């Protein structure tokens, strides 16, 4: 019975994280963007610095009419937000936050699990883009697919480099094997992984598929109300997952200069939030890459870099053994 209780508690904990962290990052984005652009942003809702703006936004989304365009493929149109959001919930289950068994569910081939399931989320955008019966949405869907095909490979190669270094594909195993000198050793792989992950999430500067000034939010053009909110939520959940994964794979997860026992989860959280801040920072400071520049970056820069990182990892691994 206690086993069942344990599983239920873990799932509830993961679900709470899934509900809280994306919203916290959404609120941080409001505030960080406002400060970086020298403007106030929403300041009134809730009194202190507009902390309740996100709640108000949620209420607004819930009140909006849920419109399905007449020409759309109704069922797929309605299913798409769930397909986009749920994979990130599943991925969160496998990300370890602390030493021991501080993980939703230890998965033997955890690295493959998270990368595989993250790739499924893109199907949601593709379904939305096609089912909307709108040419801007279709263009957005096409760009999404092209972007995924280009950036999935460098992401996998960079992750493979860490798996080689650690000698395991289990996420807790990789963090267990971590030493501080892995950071300089794997830094190129880490940058490639983070960049490719940003592209997979379609965050600026890789937001060509949703470019609101040219194709009016791409695959999400026709969405309103809660379904649109779910797409936004999946973007923020994606940031949490990407930053958590980069932390676990390249920044040593719960390892820190001190307090690794007991407070390890705080280190994981801190590193994840710092990376999330970087994601927001990039949104404010970088212009959008054009479609051909996107493809060129992936195929001529990131993939060679990731391959070089794998070669370096292999050489160091053989020499030090």
């Amino acid at each position, binding site marked *: 019975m206690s086993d069942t209780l344990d599983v239920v508690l873990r799932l509830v904990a993961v679900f709470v994280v899934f509900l809280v962290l994306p919203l916290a990052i959404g609120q941080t984005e409001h505030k960080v963007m406002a400060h970086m652009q020298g403007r106030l942003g929403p300041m009134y809702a809730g009194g202190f610095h507009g902390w309740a703006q996100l709640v108000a936004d949620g209420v607004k989304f819930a009140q909006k009419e849920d419109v399905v365009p007449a020409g759309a493929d109704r069922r*797929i149109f309605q299913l798409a937000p769930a397909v986009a959001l749920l994979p990130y919930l599943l991925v969160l289950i496998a990300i370890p936050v602390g030493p021991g068994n501080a993980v939703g569910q230890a998965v033997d081939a955890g690295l493959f699990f998270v990368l595989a399931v993250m*790739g499924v989320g893109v199907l949601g955008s593709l*379904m939305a883009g096609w089912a909307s019966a709108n040419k801007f949405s279709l263009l957005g869907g096409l760009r999404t697919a092209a972007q995924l095909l280009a950036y*999935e490979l460098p992401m996998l190669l960079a992750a493979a480099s860490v798996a080689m270094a650690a000698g395991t594909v289990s996420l807790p195993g990789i963090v267990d094997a971590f030493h501080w000198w892995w950071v300089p050793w794997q830094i190129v792989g880490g940058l490639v992984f983070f960049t490719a992950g940003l592209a997979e999430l379609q965050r600026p500067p890789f937001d060509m598929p949703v470019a609101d000034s040219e194709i009016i939010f791409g695959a999400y053009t026709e969405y309103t109300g809660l379904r649109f909110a779910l797409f936004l939520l999946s973007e923020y959940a994606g940031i949490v997952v990407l930053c958590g994964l980069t932390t676990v794979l390249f920044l040593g997860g719960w390892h820190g200069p001190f307090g690794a026992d007991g407070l390890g989860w705080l280190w994981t959280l801190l590193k994840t939030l710092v990376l999330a801040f970087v994601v927001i920072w990039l949104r404010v400071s970088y212009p959008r890459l054009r479609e051909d520049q996107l493809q060129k970056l992936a195929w001529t820069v990131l993939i060679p870099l990731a391959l070089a990182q794998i070669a370096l990892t292999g050489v160091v691994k053989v020499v030090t053994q």
Partner: protein
Amino acid sequence: MTGTVALAAQSQGFLSTSGVEIAFLLVGLVTFGAALVTVTTKQLVHAALWLVVALGGLAVEYLLLTAEFIAWVQVLIYVGSVVVLLLFGLMLTKAPIGRSPDADSGNRWPALGVAVAAAAALVWIVVDAFRTTWIDLDGAPQGTTKVSGEILFRHWVLPFEALSVLLLAALVGAVVLSRRKADAETAGSKAGGKR
């Protein structure tokens, strides 16, 4: 052959099914149904999406057979990449919403014959090869990444490398095919310009 059947029935029993076996059967039925819809539906994009269900069901079957690594690779390669590529291709052709009545090659019956023959051959071979083999679910997992890696790179290295050469050949072939066409086009346009 009847001897081995009796042996298998003796050690495990065909009728005393466990929960995992029932789950395996049910997921198999769902996968089969999704595969059938994939090849019979007239809506092109729906076919691709039903293919996702079929491939995902297959991944669950691998999981139930304790082959965790293979299951995630299945999701990564087939659901995450091959289906995305398929959808990309379908969107390029502006696959219409709703039915495409002309989406039929007219080879319905030959296709069914080939499918049934292939399925019969595969089922026969697998049943004959693994008749008395049972997976011990209580012991150590038999399909972990470590086990798969050791078997692949110790016992099956040569077929593995042969496969990679095959893939390389396919890759080079694709490059050659696409380049020849592009060259012909540019040559044609140049010639046209001179005239």
